[in-house]
């Protein structure tokens, strides 16, 4: 797209949640940002679960995002290091689907996921690593590469995890795609953003550029706006995962999630418009006041 910054048509990447889902296609490889129960783009995940999308390959440091997409039958393949709900670690919806053999897996060490994303972000076909040596991870068809230097050591060649799309949840964004991640850990969202052909960010609030208060917040800007394709405003869009400092993890809701069969959970919490969802989980005042969880 050339000249989108022309004076008569200012750059504006804002789109709706449904339009964001519309930019995805069957069979795509999609990276989902955050880590386990922290800062997952859950509003977008629920929208995908409601959509007709199928045969997705998902790359994630997995939490309820993976559990929901697995339960909704959206996965063809999962590329992951773990799926965990932290406090009550095992996600029953993920487990049921995995145990039924509902999708393929490429199981990696957490650091290998990081490395594969970094390779893609650098437009490299692979990065060498020792990780995987000595384990069953190496038996999944990973190839090796020999150091051309004196050491001659042989390494696993971690293949690039190139993404068709990355879905990331941030605290603030502007219409141009400038973003702020205010939580204490940026995780590996930056690498996912750079590894992806298109990046869709959902934001707690979409504000004017000056309201991002960049002079005070430069260190919280995870990547430059040119990697961002679309911006969706999604207040409480990480719920039930945490978006500290705006709101904490909803442990009570996660308990409901783990204890409710998927069909019932789907009709109570997924098959809803975002406003209805917020009411179903107790309203804005409740979610906005969720305290920081203790890990």
């Amino acid at each position, binding site marked *: 797209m050339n000249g989108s910054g022309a004076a008569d048509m200012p750059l504006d990447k804002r789109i709706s949640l449904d339009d964001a889902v519309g930019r995805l296609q069957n069979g795509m490889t999609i990276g989902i940002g955050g880590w386990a129960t922290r800062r997952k783009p859950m509003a977008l995940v629920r929208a995908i679960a409601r959509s007709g999308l199928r045969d997705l390959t998902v790359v994630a440091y997995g939490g309820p995002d993976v559990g929901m997409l697995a339960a909704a039958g959206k996965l063809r393949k999962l590329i992951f290091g*773990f799926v*965990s709900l932290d406090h009550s670690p095992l996600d029953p919806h993920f487990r049921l689907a995995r145990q039924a053999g509902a999708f393929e897996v490429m199981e990696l060490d*957490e650091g290998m996921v990081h490395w594969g994303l970094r390779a893609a972000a650098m437009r490299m076909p692979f990065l060498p690593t020792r990780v995987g040596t*000595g384990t069953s*991870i190496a038996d999944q068809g990973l190839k090796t590469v020999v150091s051309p230097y004196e050491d001659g050591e042989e390494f696993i060649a971690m293949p690039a995890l190139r993404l068709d799309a990355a879905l990331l949840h941030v605290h603030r964004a502007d219409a141009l795609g400038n973003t702020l991640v205010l939580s*204490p850990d940026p995780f590996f969202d930056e690498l996912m953003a750079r590894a992806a052909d298109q990046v869709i960010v959902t934001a707690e609030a979409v504000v004017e550029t000056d309201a991002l208060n960049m002079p005070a917040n430069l260190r919280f800007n995870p990547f430059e706006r040119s990697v961002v394709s679309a911006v969706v405003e999604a207040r409480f869009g990480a719920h039930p995962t945490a978006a500290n400092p705006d709101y904490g993890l909803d442990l009570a809701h996660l308990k409901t999630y783990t204890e409710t069969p998927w069909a019932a959970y789907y009709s109570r919490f997924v098959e809803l418009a975002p406003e209805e969802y917020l009411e179903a989980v107790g309203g804005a005042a409740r979610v906005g006041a969720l305290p920081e969880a203790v890990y």
Partner: protein
Amino acid sequence: MFTLAELCIVAMAQAWREDDEVLASGMTLLPRLAAGLAKLTLNDALLMTDGENGFVTEPVPVGPRGDYKPRLEGWAPYARTFDNLWSGKRHAFVAPTQIDRYGQTNISTIGLREKPKAALLGARGFPGNTIHHPNSFFFPSHHKRAFVAGEVDFVCGAGYNPERWMNGKKPIGLDLRLIVTDLAVLDFTGPGNSIRVKSLHPGVSFAKVQENTGFELMGEDAPETEAPSAEALEVIRTRLDPHGLRASVFK
């Protein structure tokens, strides 16, 4: 008087006694308490986190914190966790589901890979951890489903099994240290780093440990596991676990 949980915490803390200035990571409740105990009573050079993104100068008590605020001394985002662990400056005490004679560990799947009988967490950081820095293991229930015959169902953590090593060469940081269970303390000091009983918990015989293990053990003449000191018990009870969460570990 002390409980089995307290005995295990004290035994696990010993793992970090001789370590340099490394990150002590205790995963799940008792190893975490043990790391705290090690820092407060055995080795104050250890680095420790609050379980999230801060390095702390003293271990954070588990459970509701009341007015307690973690004393932060540095930033520990997950990216830094990987950078640090690849450097080798860490000793993790983790709780796998299965272990085999080689010290290979599993937290991923039980049974067939395509349609597992049980899908657990996934390999997490085990593959990278086990080839870069020292690791120790806690098993709250010592039985043959955990201490398996043959190999574990999916090898997440590397062990002393040259068949799986790249070109048969030992990985750069492979260094398995201690296993603590509800029955005994074991280590890897048998021939070829095989597993040996180091000490037996009070009232437990070597035969009982062997009976509950799917492979042959050394260490018939192991002494009794040392009882916790009054100081250690005081630190566990008042500073590290004031709400007594440790009572929930052994039924």
